[in-house]
Each structure stands twice: as C-alpha cells, then as structure tokens.
C-alpha cells in the first residue's frame, strides 16, 4: 500500500515538474507577452496543482492537506488575475 502511495506521489510531482519545465521554456522562447503568459499559467495552474496532488497522500493530518489545497487555490486566484492585469497592460503599450 505504501509503495502505491509513494508511486502516486512520484508520478504526480514529476508530472508537475514537467509542466514547470515546459512553462519555463515557453517563457524564454515564446515571441510576445500573451504567449509567454499562456506558458506561465500552465506552470502555475497544472504544475503546482499536480505537485499539491502528489504531496496530499504524504501529509499526516487533514488540516495540513487543507493548507496545501488552500495554497494552490490562492496561487490559482492571484495568478489568474495578475495574468489578466499584465496582459491588459501589455496590450495598451
């Protein structure tokens, strides 16, 4: 059982790390601000989401698990809005 849980963690966190890597490559290589933002949001939303998902089986208590999920939701929320603000600013330039 513990091996299966460890496997879930390894797979989910690795998948999350791949999204971060892809997002970073996109940030460096994409031509303009909206494209780069598009790449970044994948790292924020899916990458962090998968890492949180992978860490969930490893925490001891429900409170800790909720804290992890709250961190993800906060990043999702602020990331989505800041992305909109940056995109709007870059379009008006």
């Amino acid at each position, binding site marked *: 059982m513990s091996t299966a849980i460890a496997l879930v963690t390894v797979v989910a966190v690795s998948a999350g790390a791949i999204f971060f890597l892809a997002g970073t490559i996109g940030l460096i290589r994409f031509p303009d601000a909206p494209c780069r933002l598009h790449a970044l949001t994948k790292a924020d939303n899916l990458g962090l989401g998968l890492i949180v998902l992978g860490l969930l089986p490893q925490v001891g208590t429900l409170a800790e698990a909720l804290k992890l999920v709250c961190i993800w939701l*906060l990043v999702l*929320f*602020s990331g989505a809005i800041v992305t909109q*603000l940056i995109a709007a600013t870059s379009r008006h330039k």
Partner: protein
Amino acid sequence: MTSALAFDLALAALVLAIATLTIAAREAMSAVISFIAYGLLLSLAWVRLRAPDVALTEAAIGAGVTGLLLLGAAATIGDRQAGAAPPLALMLAAGLACTLVASGLAATTLVLLPEPAPTLAPPAMASLATTGLGNPVTAVLFVYRALDTLLEKVVLVLALLGVWSLAPDRVWGGVARLGPDAPPRAMLVFLAQLLPPVGMLIAIYMFWTGADHPGGAFQGGAILAAMWLIVLTARLADMPATSHPGLRLLVLAGPMLFAAIGFAGWALADAFLAYPEGYAKPLIILAEAGLTLSIAATLACLVAGPATRTPPP
C-alpha cells in the same frame, strides 16, 4: 553526494547568479525585479538553514515590502535614469571596497570563529519554559532582547517621519499618491474585493501563532500592509491624509503600548521591560497585537511615500 547537498549547492549557485544579475542589470526596473527574485530565493536558503522565522521575514519584508518600495522608486525615476555612467576608477574602487567587506566578513565567520561556534542557544532554550512561549525566536525578541525590539519599532516610526518630511511645505499633512492616476482596472478591483478577507485571516494567524510557532508581529504586519495597499491601489478606500489623527495614532499605538508595558515592568517586576511572574505570555501577545497593527500602518505609509496633494477640506 546526497540529494539535499545537491539542492543546497544549486540554490547557492542560483542565489549568486541572481545577485550578479541584479548588479549587472542596466535598467532600474530589471534590477528591482531581480532583487525581488533574489529575496525569495534567499528565504528558501533560510528555510534550508532551518530558520523559518527569518525565512518568513525575508520573504515578507526583504522581498515583498522592500521590493514594493524599490518598484515605486524605479517607476518614479524611470525617465531620468539615463545619465552618464560613473567614471571607471570610481566603479573599480566601489567594487574593490565591496570585495574587501565581503571577504572580511567571510574570513571572520569561516576562519576566526572557533569550532563549534559560540552560542547562547542552550541557555535560551533552558529558560524558554519560564516565558510560557513555545517559539524561542519570539522569546529572544520579546523577553531576552525586548529593548532591541522596542527600539527597532521606534526606528520604523522614525523612518516614516523621514519619508513624510520629504513632502513640500504646501502639501504638508496631505495625501500620498498611490498607483497611477488612471482609474483602476476592473480585475484589480475584483482582486481587492476578494483577497483581503483571506489575507487578513492569514495575517492574524501569523501574529497569533508567533508565540509558539514561526511567525510574529512583523510577518503578520507585512501581510496586513499588503492587503491595505491592494485596497488602496484599487481605490476601494481613500488613502488617509498624513495629518489624520487616527493614522498617526495607529502608527504610534504599538510602540507606545510596548513602552507602557515596559514601564509597568518597573513597578510590577523590578525592571524595565520585565514581565510579572506568570503574565509574560499574555503581555507579549498584547504588545504583539498592537505592534502588528502599527507595523502594517507604517509599512503601508512607507510604500505610499510622502504627501503629494493637499488634504481634502
């Protein structure tokens, strides 16, 4: 090589790389953004050194509030920074002086200190039970070295006085300008409506948990300041004039409360800033509550800067 060591080496290399980037940046804005990233990486380094209190402060103050202050400064000087580069001799002299200071510090810590390094940690931990606190960092800040902490807060107020004094005479006591003159974007208003309740809860938690776990007045106050700044930037509330009695009281309340507790120590426990037996923890939490509010108000006012408009009648 263990994975922990590999991570630490990579982190150290990254911190050095970002530090170089910060110094080498040609534009003020890029330098500031690198500096914020540098602060966040440095807070990770503090986590690796098992100093979560310092890590939280570095992230909140070193990267967050200082970053905001520098962003504001870079935006203000943005157009007139294209001056001539300083003479080569001056740059070389400055670089040499920095190298000397850095290698001096490195020599002092790495070579001159005996092994193991002198530490007061065991006696500090031994007396922790008498304070009623669970977090040794808070015990150092509010029991063993309370005078330092009190004076630190006074310095913060003095810094704000310095910033406010930059206002020209005709707008003295007026209102500081925060953000651009254009009306705020709808998205920013949305953020300012939704985030502050969550942020205030986290700030209160941060201050409350500081007695027993990493956290405290400074970290909580910085988050509270950030929430207030978001609301002010979105124009959901008006920036109070620097002459507003309530604002001035808020800035002074924490240090004054802490000083009052200190003077009460003379009467009740024989020494300035000594706490009566058994009342140490409640008094410290009271002082921290006041300080959290004052730190939040002071930091937000520091970011907002000196008054630029006359106060509304």
